């Protein structure tokens, strides 16, 4: 028993580390694919230099990020078999299908067209080249969809029956798996969060670039890349708008998801609130200090009735507490698991960190959008041209004071990291909040591990991945910082390729490639 426990623990740590790490790159990949595609569309349609430079600049950062997403994604598919073979056997019939679909429909799309996009600048007609990045973006969306459908099935299994002879779950309705409410709401929530992440990433780097300009102007240092400010100014606005729209979407979808979860996994939501006893007109706890795990808080800030509203759409309804849900689950599942409670402090705090960090970047986006608003809303003399750094304007006539001004730019840079924290805690909450189940109501996590794999093997694997990921994180961040600091490059678009047959003139045959590894 002791050994089995250790095995489960190591396997869970590996899954947690590799998944949270992988998911640092996923939302950036999804949203930047769409945003770069949008910028390139603007360039192809208008031919304006700032859109070309934006496409190239954000495209480069996008690719640095994609490499890590792809690399860390490989592990995800295989570790189900490696560490969770009992799980794989039990659910492969249902769970394997969306995974295989993801590979066939989405991975091929992404990886084939990304190669065409990277190397195709001077080999494809502009519109076809543009279509490639859109196909990459669609591929990332489909990929997210299928994997979230698979995860939603673990949260709320549907469209299956248990085969009595083999004891395995068997699929009997693929549409139910792909289109159940949990899947749809989770996809909505994850995608909006992805755009919040990408938007904040752009805001952070663009703010850094603009901020550096105003400092450099005072010190008159090296010559600037032409069009850099216009490029970054447009990017900043694009990022801010994305953050605000996506932030709203994340809140709305998060609310919808909470209501779905109150229905499907009341324990997870009770744990999120550390709500021990069922309460009518339950309050929403903003902050608690004390022993959250035991439901005794010495300091607590609450908003009365809000929890009832969030859970049930009504300020007075009763919200089930941990004790009553546990009694229900004990009656239903007997002694499948020793304990039907997840870790309450983890659920309580990760839920708050998720909302807190997500909404902080939303708020920063909202304020930023106001401070950098359009020229016609500003007084004469306070307007700045397209190739100048915008003033941060409180009212049509008044700028932010120097200290506030400095902090506004700093916060804009910092906000880059906020959604990454929020995303991580979101997954930690949703996965740890489901415990002790791996498939809710069907299979416990303890029963899911590979019986034939030794703890030594698992620890080897866990250490190797952790060390490798740590090294790669350093490499990746250094590269991102290098390219983000360098800013857009002074370059001209490659000559228009007339047709798919390639460049018109033969002398092009010996021209160096536009891009090469």
């Amino acid at each position: 028993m002791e050994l089995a426990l250790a095995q489960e623990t190591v396997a869970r740590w590996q899954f947690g580390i590799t998944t949270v790490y992988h998911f640092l790159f996923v939302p950036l990949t999804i949203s930047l694919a769409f945003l770069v595609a949008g910028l390139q569309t603007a360039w192809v349609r208008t031919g304006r230099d700032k859109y070309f430079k934006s496409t190239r600049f954000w495209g480069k950062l996008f690719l640095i990020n994609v490499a890590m997403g792809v690399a860390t994604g490989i592990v995800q598919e295989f570790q189900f078999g490696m560490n969770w073979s009992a799980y794989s056997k039990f659910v492969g019939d249902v769970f394997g299908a969306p995974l295989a679909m993801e590979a066939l429909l989405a991975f091929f799309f992404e990886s084939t067209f990304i190669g065409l996009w990277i190397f195709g600048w001077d080999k494809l007609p502009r519109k076809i080249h543009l279509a490639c990045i859109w196909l990459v973006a669609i591929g990332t969306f489909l990929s997210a969809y299928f994997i979230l459908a698979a995860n939603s099935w673990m949260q709320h299994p549907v469209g299956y029956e248990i085969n009595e002879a083999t004891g395995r779950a068997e699929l009997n309705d693929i549409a139910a798996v792909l289109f159940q409410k949990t899947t749809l709401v989770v996809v909505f929530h994850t995608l909006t969060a992805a755009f919040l992440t990408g938007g904040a990433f752009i805001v952070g780097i663009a703010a850094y670039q603009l901020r550096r300009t105003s400092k450099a102007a005072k010190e008159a240092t090296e010559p600037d890349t032409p069009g850099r400010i216009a490029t970054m100014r447009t990017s900043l606005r694009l990022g801010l708008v994305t953050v605000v729209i996506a932030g709203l979407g994340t809140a709305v979808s998060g609310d919808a998801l909470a209501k779905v979860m109150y229905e499907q996994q009341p324990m997870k939501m009770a744990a999120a609130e550390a709500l021990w006893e069922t309460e009518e007109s339950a309050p929403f706890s903003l902050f608690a200090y004390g022993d959250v795990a035991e439901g005794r808080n010495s300091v607590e800030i609450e908003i009365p009735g809000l929890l009832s509203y969030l859970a049930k759409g009504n300020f007075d309804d009763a919200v089930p507490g941990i004790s009553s849900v546990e009694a229900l689950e004990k009656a239903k599942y007997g002694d499948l698991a020793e304990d039907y409670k997840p870790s309450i402090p983890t659920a309580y705090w990760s839920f708050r960190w998720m909302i807190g960090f997500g909404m902080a970047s939303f708020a920063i986006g909202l304020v930023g959008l106001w401070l950098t608003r359009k020229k016609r809303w500003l007084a004469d003399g306070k307007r700045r041209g397209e190739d100048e750094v915008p003033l941060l304007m409180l009212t049509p006539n008044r700028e932010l004071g120097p200290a506030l001004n400095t902090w506004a730019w700093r916060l804009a840079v910092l906000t880059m990291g906020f959604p990454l924290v929020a995303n991580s805690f979101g997954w930690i909450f949703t996965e740890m909040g489901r415990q002790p189940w791996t498939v809710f109501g069907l299979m416990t996590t303890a029963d899911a591990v590979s019986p034939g794999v030794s703890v030594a093997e698992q620890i080897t694997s866990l250490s190797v991945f952790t060390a490798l990921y740590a090294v790669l994180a350093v490499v990746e961040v250094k590269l991102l910082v290098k390219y983000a600091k360098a800013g857009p490059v002074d370059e001209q678009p490659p000559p228009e390729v007339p047709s798919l047959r390639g460049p018109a003139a033969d002398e092009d045959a010996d021209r160096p490639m536009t891009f090469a590894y």
Partner: protein
Amino acid sequence: MELHDIWFALIAVLWIGYFFLEGFDFGVGILTKLLARDEAERRVLINTVGPVWDGNEVWLLTAGGATFAAFPAWYATLFSGFYLPLLAILVCLIVRVVAFEYRGKREDARWKRNWEHALFWTSLLPAFLWGVAFANIVHGVKIDAEGEYAGTVLDLLNPYALLGGLVTLALFTFHGAVFAALKTRGDIRDRARTLAARAGLATAGLALVFLLWTQGSGGNVRSLVALVLTVVALLGALAANQRAREGWAFALSGVTVAGAVAMLFLALYPDVMPSSLDTAWSLTVSNASSSAYTLTVMTWVAAIMTPVVLLYQGWTYWVFRKRIGVEHIPA
């Protein structure tokens, strides 16, 4: 013929696609140390697969995903049983992706050299380990009554399996050299052909022993046909390479890869993972497969999507059909 037989064939096709495509990727990665004389030549080689290696690797993810969906028990036993070799392969594939993408991202000689070392080793090791893994699958491993792997990692390193590893290593190096000869121009192209001839001869020697061993220990008439096809294709590829008919040489080295993988799967069928402890404990196409419903759904998806994937991946190769020489490498 039932659905699970069709899926066995489909999974064989996915692995053939993977080894055909990533086979030459691995080969090209190995050549960066064997063939290239300087930085420019290394970049020529890397860029012959530059636009396509990522798409090629997805064949592995698809083969893995399809095995999960169609034969969950096979997927579970294989990946938990071959735990450490698979871990090594995964680490290589991760580092390899990053090596491709990050090598040129800094103008620093040491940085580039480190990623080049990484690219070489992370191409070489999987090229060897995949052979070890497949040889073990075909040969049979210690699978107990519960369908769990009961052996140790040392059991996987038996002579037959190690020979299998050398075969794939030599074969992929050959396949990669033939591909490099087809995709480059200038001096490096001629040297690639010379190297292909040597690697091809080594492959022929190793493969003949390995395939005959396979045929002798668990072969059947169908696997014999595949064996003959493989050997003929390999000899044809060598002959075409000798005459500098690079297109033919590549097509035939591709058939060699396909034939060899097909032979292993034909020798395996109807088992998917035979048990060396008791044949009653072997995983077979029928006891390891998913329900008929899942297989039907997946058949529709595969039947529609596989041709589409082949079409657009094929188109990628057409777009980047031009040979690359050192003169094409930007500063």
